């Protein structure tokens, strides 16, 4: 049996293990480990384990992950999400479906200080769902909006999957963050349009609320100030060259902790809880990083990615066809797997394939373009059945709305996603244009 065949075989084993409830990280570790031993023998494998996992834990580039997580969890506890929702609501509340638009605006703003999709969806749901219920919003629309809105959390920088992509693809994190901005804004606008169309078809789904006076709007806008402060500190710091991303995350986490002090009724327990939330989320991510490290070194040993890239390059398919096929694979995988695992497992395989094809872009532009589109398609997996993590979380928070209704509520947003991906595929400049424009 050739090495690439063995590689494919153990890919299959890994998927099998995942599908019978073995934690994803452990499935990667076991399949990757046994595969490595099959190809290279015990001695080199055991040797890599001596320091390999430690280097994952002490990798300078990964330090940014727990810090951004801490920042996001602190921001939720600090009541920042409430202020953001109120701010957006002052401007959209009087429209039909206005609360949903406000929730999307709130998610987009919160996404700018939080790198995690579930955290964004959950924290916004806690403030927006009760309001939507009070105004008699349709359960499907309300929960669908929040599940979809949460995906803005990982598209709008900072974004943890994008950080991992940057490391795997050896690209500049700051540039990728910058590139994600415009697609992120397009996403938020597209979702608001989806809401507007939905309530036009079914006006009962989202009745209009009272109009805010300009005085109220002014006050609500002032409430955006803490979030804006963190945002400017973190991303402003990165782009002005004052901070590295890790330093920015450290400042962001500390700044958020200080801002939280001003929230009335904040207690020490809130801080400890956010530390524990950070602990659980970080541990889960690093287990997957360690598992992927083992599995990917096995993949490299098997030569499967290279042989796949060579096969595709020799197949005579047009570059765009290949891209669309890859995106379809992501859509299918996204129905089953979480986004970080997907990025970790597929980028080592697909990245060389894409880079070997000619899209009429420079190497760096191709890498950035592919990263952003892959991130979007991966995130779509968060709201598609059967495994839509966002949908599960929101549905759990919205008592009395059946799961089926939430998945129905997500459909308009999925359509909006399809339009956006088509747009970005046709106009790659939407991804890398901002970088050229800023001259970063």
């Amino acid at each position, binding site marked *: 049996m050739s090495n690439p065949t063995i590689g494919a075989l153990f890919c299959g084993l890994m998927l099998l*293990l995942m*599908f*019978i*409830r*073995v*934690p*994803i*990280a*452990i*499935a990667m570790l*076991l399949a990757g480990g046994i595969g490595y031993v099959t190809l290279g023998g015990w001695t080199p494998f055991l040797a890599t*384990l*001596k*320091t390999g*996992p*430690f280097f994952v*834990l*002490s*990798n*300078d580039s990964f*330090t940014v992950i*727990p*810090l951004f997580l*801490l920042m996001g969890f602190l921001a939720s506890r600090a009541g920042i999400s409430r202020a953001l929702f109120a701010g957006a609501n002052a401007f959209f509340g009087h429209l039909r479906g206005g609360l949903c638009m406000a929730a999307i605006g709130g998610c987009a703003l919160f996404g700018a200080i939080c790198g*995690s999709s*579930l955290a964004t969806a*959950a924290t916004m749901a806690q403030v927006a769902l009760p309001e939507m219920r009070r105004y008699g919003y349709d359960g499907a629309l309300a929960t669908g909006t929040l599940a979809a809105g949460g995906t803005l959390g990982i598209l709008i920088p900072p974004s943890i*999957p994008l950080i991992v992509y940057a490391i795997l693809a050896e690209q500049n994190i700051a540039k990728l963050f910058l590139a994600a901005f415009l697609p992120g804004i397009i996403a938020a606008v597209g979702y608001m349009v989806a809401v507007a169309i939905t309530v036009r078809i079914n006006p009962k789904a989202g009745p209009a609320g009272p109009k805010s006076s300009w005085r109220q709007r002014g006050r609500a806008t002032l409430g955006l100030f803490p979030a804006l402060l963190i945002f400017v500190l973190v991303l402003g710091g990165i782009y002005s060259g*004052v901070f590295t991303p*890790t*330093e920015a995350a*450290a*400042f962001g986490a*500390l700044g958020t902790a200080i801002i939280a002090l001003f929230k009335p009724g904040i207690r020490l327990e809130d801080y*400890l*809880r956010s*530390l*524990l*939330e*950070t*602990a*659980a*989320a*970080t*541990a*889960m991510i*690093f*287990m*997957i990083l*360690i598992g992927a490290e083992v599995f990917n070194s096995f993949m490299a040993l098997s030569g499967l990615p290279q042989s796949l890239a060579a096969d595709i390059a020799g197949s005579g398919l047009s570059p765009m066809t290949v891209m669309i096929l890859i995106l379809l694979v992501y859509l299918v995988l996204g*129905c*089953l797997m*979480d*986004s*970080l*695992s997907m990025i970790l497992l597929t980028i080592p395989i697909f990245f060389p394939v894409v880079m070997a094809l000619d899209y009429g872009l420079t190497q760096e532009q191709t890498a950035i373009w592919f990263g952003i589109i892959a991130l979007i398609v991966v995130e779509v997996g*968060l709201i598609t059945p*059967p495994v839509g*993590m966002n949908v599960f979380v929101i549905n*759990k928070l919205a008592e009395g709305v059946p799961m089926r209704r939430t998945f129905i509520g997500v459909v308009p947003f999925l359509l909006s996603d399809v339009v956006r991906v088509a747009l970005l595929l046709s106009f790659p400049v939407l991804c890398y244009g901002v970088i050229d424009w800023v001259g970063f």
Partner: protein
Amino acid sequence: MAELAPDSGTDLPGTRLDRLCRWLALLGGLLLAAAALVTVVSVLGRYFFNDAIAGDIEIVTFLTAMAVSLFLPYCQLRRGNVIVDVFTENAGPRTRALLDALGSLGLAVAAGVIAWRMTLGGWSFRLYGDETMVLRIPSWWPFLVVVPCFALLCLCGLVTLKRDLAERSGW
């Protein structure tokens, strides 16, 4: 994605091991906060006093490595590791518990092997006197925290294995 819903708080059964792991996770959180603080002080020093903390990155990465490993046992006890449950949704609770037991066993084995290999890895760092570039911190120091954490993770895997099996036979 790899993300988590906000903490429900009262999720651990509350044995002595559960409490220990929660405390260790909090300790890890404090180390992480310390890492953030070191970074902030170093950057402020760099801009305002033209004097960064020498080797701040070394301190930060070691603190983070220790923090993350302190988080691992806690995450396992609260079943924080992501699983795919689409294909087993319709299986009976006993079958699911048995499969979860398999997952726990896999985790215990993996964590045990890693703890064993890292003991040797840390030992060889010590033997060869490997140290960081700037501060000359011996590279094996963080292993004093990381290795026991993986051993504890292995133990936690065995404990969750026992809990899965207990659920299966309905004790």
